[in-house]
């Protein structure tokens, strides 16, 4: 099990406070800068490892950054704190985005990222809660995160805890039926302490979702299952913050976050081949230049 990195955790605390205190435009800027730094870190990590899911990492990073730097009630130095909010990354193949975010929060030392996917590293291609603090359940096979999150939300209610459960789902994985079993359960039990965020980048591994097995109208589907739905630009940090902090009814919340796969790197954006293609060193350099602009 990796251990917390107090220096990074202190930096996370300072930035989080600065973001909380900032005027909206400055807040947006701070979150965008932070997300783009994670993007650059992620690209270098994937280049080093020679594997990863770059497209989905880049699409989900604004969501992760907004949650970890603006929303989640967590303490990276106390990952077992009972009443922490729970965060589950159901689309476990974008572990790279999660690892860069957890490292930025101080759950473990950023230097560990150098070991991503190396033999015996704690940082597997898919996240493992037994090895990585901040990971709440092992994901990778699709359609697993939402049922487990429903169980966590039921537990939070049974315990009378104010903790909230956030789960990030890929859009393609909503083709798995297990999600809809869990969506029914959450709606039926009125799990207001559960928020599902759909990273709606409209691409799955091999093609567009709507060409493969169409998901739209996704908002109506969740509403029909008893959820409140917010549809937002998943790269607009303020819109995400608003959706996460909006007054809640007695229903679970679904945030459909419209995103672009490969976000921030012009030659990757919305291109299906960048699902898990590994960029060359030259491509990584040029991507990082773009992100720094």
């Amino acid at each position, binding site marked *: 099990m990796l251990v917390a990195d107090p220096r990074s955790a202190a930096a996370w605390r300072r930035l989080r406070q600065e973001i909380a205190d900032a005027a909206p435009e400055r807040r947006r800027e701070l979150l965008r800068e932070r997300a783009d730094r994670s993007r650059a870190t992620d690209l270098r990590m994937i280049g080093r490892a020679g594997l990863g899911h770059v497209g989905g990492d880049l699409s989900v990073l604004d969501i992760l950054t907004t949650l970890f730097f603006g929303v989640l009630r967590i303490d990276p130095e106390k990952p077992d704190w009972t009443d922490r909010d729970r965060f589950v990354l159901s689309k476990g193949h974008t572990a790279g985005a999660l690892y860069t975010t957890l490292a930025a929060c101080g759950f473990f030392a950023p230097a560990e990222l150098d070991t991503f996917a190396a033999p015996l590293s704690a940082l597997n291609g898919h996240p493992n809660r037994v090895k990585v603090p901040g990971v709440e*359940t092992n*994901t990778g096979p699709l359609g*697993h995160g939402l*049922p487990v*999150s429903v169980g966590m939300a039921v537990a939070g209610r049974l315990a009378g805890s104010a903790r909230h459960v956030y789960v990030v789902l890929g859009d393609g994985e909503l083709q798995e039926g297990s999600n809809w*079993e*869990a969506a029914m359960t959450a709606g039926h039990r009125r799990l207001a302490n559960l928020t599902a965020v759909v990273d709606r980048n409209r691409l799955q591994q091999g093609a567009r979702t709507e060409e493969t097995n169409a998901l739209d109208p996704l908002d109506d589907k969740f509403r029909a299952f008893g959820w409140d739905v917010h549809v937002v630009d998943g790269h607009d940090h303020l819109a995400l913050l608003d959706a996460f902090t909006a007054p809640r009814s007695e229903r679970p919340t679904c945030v459909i976050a419209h995103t672009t796969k490969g976000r921030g790197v012009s030659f990757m954006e919305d291109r299906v081949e960048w699902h898990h293609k590994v960029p060359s060193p030259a491509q990584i350099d040029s991507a990082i230049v773009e992100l720094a602009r």
Partner: protein
Amino acid sequence: MSAPVDELFDCRVAFAEQLIELAHEDERIVAVCNDSVGSSNLVQFAKEFPTRMINVGIAEQDMVGVGAGLALSGYIPFVCGASPFLTGRALEQIKADVAYSQSPVVLCGMSPGMAYGELGPTHHSIEDLSWLRAIAGLGIVVPADPQETKAAVRWAAAAATPVFLRVARFKVPAVTGSRPFTFGTATRLRDGDDVTVVATGTMVSRALEAAAEAADRGVSVRVLNMSTIAPLDEEAIRAAMRETRAIVTAEEATTTGGLGAAVAAVVVTEPSPVPMRMLGVHREFAPTGSTAFLLEHFKLTAADIRAAAVELAR
């Protein structure tokens, strides 16, 4: 050396009684089920603990995921469903959310084996032991009678480890007496020095009957109740190899990967293997018939076990 007695028990009754008793003692205990409140014998539990009975409806993948989420949040979930659907439908959830995530869920496979008789192979759960034995970190417990069922439930609630508990519906006599249940340890219910019968679940009482009948024919049969299939008590198997001349396994399950295969894997990797017979279902779907009929059809009666033991003793 308890001779089998006439009274027969549905282990689900003992299961429910013990679960309710534990739930009174420990408020972390919850039940999760797939509409199977009745068939999992949870009606009384639901009455006494309405908020701790989480019925997700007919949705096994959700059921196991919800159980994992509860376990990862400090609860002790007993996730109950008919064994064919719990294990077959939610196998990947059992692997990823329970075993690999090390979430201490107690998976309760109700009415396993061929308990659903005439309902046919869709409702039989003879594959469960094979499927689950391939999953790392998952304990597999198959109690032989009501006493052992209660002891196993008590153990599982305290174990804080992923475990599958196979709870028989087909009625069995009480055979384990006051012997304690120790996870991972076989119990010797009868001593003998010619042949060892290693039996599990509903086959244990039949193995004892077989041993008594074999004694009449001058064959001394040891009976091991292998109530933990994983991890297997390999030392008990090695002792049987040293101290008796052959091994018969008996299970209400497919022999492809269950108890018989587990025992065989020990036997063939020792320097001096002993002859073996594996009684069970050999990669076949059952024809129509009651449970009792099917156990005869697949040669899983006391007489069949005795015949195998006597033949190997020659």
